[in-house]
């Protein structure tokens, strides 16, 4: 029995030494894993969605491989409902290896506007949830997570249709100049078309469009010219329908009564 007990003791001691050495070297390896998060790039994909792409470089100079590297980003509205989510997963980062990956987050502004048109006209806050996880030595899962708030700038902030200016174009038609103004608070330069349709008593009596180009944080002031038949104009019952067409989003009709 003494020999068996001694063998148990020796085996236990050896396993303890292995376990402690492994734990210490795994913990020590953490400081030798370097992460570099590059500047996010914005681009458009084939489906006219905005793609935020962030390069991530990981250098593993630790004693062990790193497994299950995972970056997850979630964007939510102020009330907590999810707008978009993106994940990047790298199964294994071998020791002494450099791995570069792109963490992509796709934002469909059309979907966003469908859920709430306020994003087009009003600035608001968005909640960003970020989490980075990995398995140290492919055995010990570690996860770091954070959340913060960023401001969403409305691309058509304070959009206003001014007083239409009527002028005689020819014997049969009048020209209507509809003044339009807004401020582009979005993170992108806004280029596109604003289309205005004029209705009188349920019948479309004129249509016009103009190209707009508003840089980030700049104000746009312009006119949309419409040509309407002199006989059709009944100013007591006029409404405008406004459409926005841009590479980032299409929105409309936005109905603005007049008169």
């Amino acid at each position, binding site marked *: 029995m003494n020999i068996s007990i001694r063998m148990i003791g020796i085996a*236990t001691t050896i396993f303890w030494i292995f*376990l402690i050495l492994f734990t210490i070297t795994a913990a*020590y390896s953490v400081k030798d894993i370097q992460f570099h998060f590059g500047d996010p790039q914005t681009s458009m994909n084939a489906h006219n969605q905005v793609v935020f792409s962030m390069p991530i470089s990981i250098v593993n100079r630790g004693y062990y491989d790193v497994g299950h590297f995972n970056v997850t980003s979630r964007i939510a509205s102020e009330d907590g409902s999810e707008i978009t989510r993106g994940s990047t997963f790298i199964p294994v980062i071998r020791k002494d290896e450099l791995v570069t990956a792109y963490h992509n987050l796709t934002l469909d502004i059309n979907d966003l506007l469908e859920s709430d048109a306020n994003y087009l006209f009003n600035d608001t806050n968005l909640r960003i949830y970020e989490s980075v996880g990995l398995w140290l030595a492919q055995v010990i*899962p570690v*996860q770091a*997570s954070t959340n913060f708030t960023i401001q969403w700038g409305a691309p058509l902030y304070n959009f206003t249709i001014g007083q239409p200016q009527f002028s005689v174009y020819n014997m049969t038609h009048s020209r209507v100049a509809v003044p339009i103004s807004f401020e582009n608070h979005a993170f992108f330069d806004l280029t596109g078309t604003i289309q205005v349709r004029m209705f009188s008593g349920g019948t479309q009596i004129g249509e016009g469009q103009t190209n707009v180009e508003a840089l980030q944080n700049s104000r746009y002031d312009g006119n949309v010219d419409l040509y309407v038949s002199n006989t059709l104009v009944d100013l007591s019952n006029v409404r405008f329908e406004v459409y926005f067409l841009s590479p980032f989003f299409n929105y409309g009709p936005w109905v603005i009564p007049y008169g």
Partner: protein
Amino acid sequence: MDEKGDDSRRKIRRIVFLALKATIKATIFYVIYFIVSGFLAPVSELIPGFQQMIEAFVMVYIVLMIISDLTSGTIYQHFFNAAKALFVMAYLILSLNGGLFGVTFENVSLLVDLRVFLVVAMLLSLLGLAKSVLQAINYMSEKAEPKLL
């Protein structure tokens, strides 16, 4: 008279030997801790209270080890060995919060899942506990055996 003197001299020698053995073991254990704590310094910077946690563990473990060595050759040695194994188990479970270790720095929360480590450590501690029980049984059975003349 001479026999009595020899007996007490043998007892003193034995106590001195046990004390010396306990001191050497405790010193070796502390030196190992000292070396290992150097490696753990980066972790200590990240986790507040980590250093104190380890120090408290080492202190209690060394005390149990010394008592166990001083009571060597008696049944109490096995009690203290079992207590040592139980202390390691309880300490690991409590300090590691069941294996899920979470820390928050400002707005960043860090979660480390040490359940695999904890399971292995528990198994090894159980093995240590089993060894102590077996040693106690062996000690008692040896005591109960009739001595050959």
